[in-house]
């Protein structure tokens, strides 16, 4: 087991290829997941990420039982679930959060049943992730999906900003709201499912939401909020990765805790700055 005593210099970690792969994974995810988070939060739909990450578990369970690739099954299953979520949301626009509960219940029920047929240790690694055991194939697959996600976020940045401002005015301004929302949910499902495969289904939504919460405290524009969320996510991920490596703790969990500490510090600092500001300025 690697311990703090074994590593005199933190940069020694770079000599381990598994560490470099993990670093690459968190760098890719820190670039893309906060963008997804800002987009979803802007539309009041942060819980979609949570639902989709749990949905991917059912796909992973199918993959493990069938002997196929869990990541592929997770993506396919989440994509189908995302289309259903969007369809139910459109059917019950006033109770749109119902669609999340319905899909979440179905997915967890199915995962519970399928979980009986797969090895519990392998299945557990998908719940909380195992960043230090990812293969180059996983890095490449995640990189390709996140690259597609990044292209989408950039190409449709203005459309999505308009959609987060007002769906009705977006329609009036020529945005094809229904197809865009569908593409939006499918892209989100693919990114979330691929990320679940590496950092764990139960931790994905924290990677998406916590940096956004930090960025919101200081972001003075939508653009700046995106940038701050990426910076916050990347900094927490790198610190968390080194920390977890040094003291042999679970990587995903440590990164989430570092993220939360950053959030608490941000809340305290911005709170003090607000108090110091004279009234009316």
């Amino acid at each position: 087991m690697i311990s703090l005593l074994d590593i005199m210099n933190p940069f020694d970690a770079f000599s381990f290829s598994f560490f470099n792969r993990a670093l690459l994974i968190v760098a890719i995810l820190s670039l893309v997941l906060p963008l997804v988070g800002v987009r979803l939060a802007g539309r009041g739909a942060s819980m979609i990420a949570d639902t989709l990450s749990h949905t991917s578990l059912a796909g992973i369970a199918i993959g493990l039982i069938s002997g196929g690739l869990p990541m592929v099954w997770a993506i396919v299953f989440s994509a189908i679930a995302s289309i259903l979520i969007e369809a139910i949301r459109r059917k019950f626009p006033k109770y749109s959060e119902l669609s999340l509960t319905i899909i979440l219940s179905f997915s967890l029920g199915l995962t519970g049943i399928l979980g009986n047929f797969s090895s519990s240790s392998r299945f557990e690694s998908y719940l909380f992730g195992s960043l230090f055991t990812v293969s180059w194939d996983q890095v490449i697959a995640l990189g390709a999906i996140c690259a597609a996600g990044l292209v989408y976020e950039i190409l449709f940045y203005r459309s999505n900003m308009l959609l987060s401002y007002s769906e009705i005015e977006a329609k009036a301004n020529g945005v094809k709201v229904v197809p865009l929302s569908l593409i939006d949910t499918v892209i989100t499902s693919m990114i979330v499912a691929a990320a679940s495969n590496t950092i764990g289904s139960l931790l994905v939504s924290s990677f998406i939401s916590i940096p956004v919460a930090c960025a919101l405290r200081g972001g003075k524009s939508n653009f700046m909020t995106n940038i701050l969320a990426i910076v916050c996510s990347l900094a927490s991920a790198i610190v968390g990765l080194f920390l977890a490596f040094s003291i042999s703790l679970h990587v995903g969990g440590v990164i989430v805790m570092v993220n939360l500490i950053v959030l608490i510090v941000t809340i305290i600092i911005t709170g003090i700055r607000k108090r110091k500001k004279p009234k009316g300025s």
Partner: protein
Amino acid sequence: MSRLNETILSANGLDYHYDDDNRVFSDLTFSVDKGAYYILSGPNGIGKSTLLKLIAGIAKPDKGSITVSAPRISYLSQLDADKRSSFALNVREIVSLGIKNRPFSFMKTIDWQKVDDWLAVFKLTDLKYRRLDELSGGQQQKARLAKCLITQPDLLLLDEPDTGIDESSREDIRNILSHLNKEHGMTIIVVSHHIEEYGEPCKKMLLSSSDLTEALE
């Protein structure tokens, strides 16, 4: 209500209902002249907002047709119509969103000077880097209106632009609308609960279940 002037909008036999028991209007026929400035009133639930949505092309009538001959139409929804949080958008970003959106439009350089000019018209220059959620209701509404006007539309459709804001902001908005109508010939249709505050040059119109007529003072 049509004159011999050029018509910018004509509606023929419009039918619209939310569900089987909730018909808002039927066989509604009217036309609007270019350069007209109308304040739309009528009982609650008669379909004033729906009519604006039909004109804007956001909703489709059950029957009938609407012909709009305006190359540029701008539509302002009710303040909390779709309960979006507006999130972290600042005033400048909101106004820039009015520029016609096309796929891949991130590549198109936004004319920020034009954005700033419109912010100056609404006296929002000092607030341009503030987030929308940091502004008062009146300031928010002015920013939203600037977003609608940045394309200098031929037809401006405003759904309750003066609801929930103070009297001085309402007056500012009315003055700007009057100026745009008089000096630039912009056709404006406003749904408002403050119909008594509007004077010349606008005309007060009354929407009933089958007609749109000039309201009697």
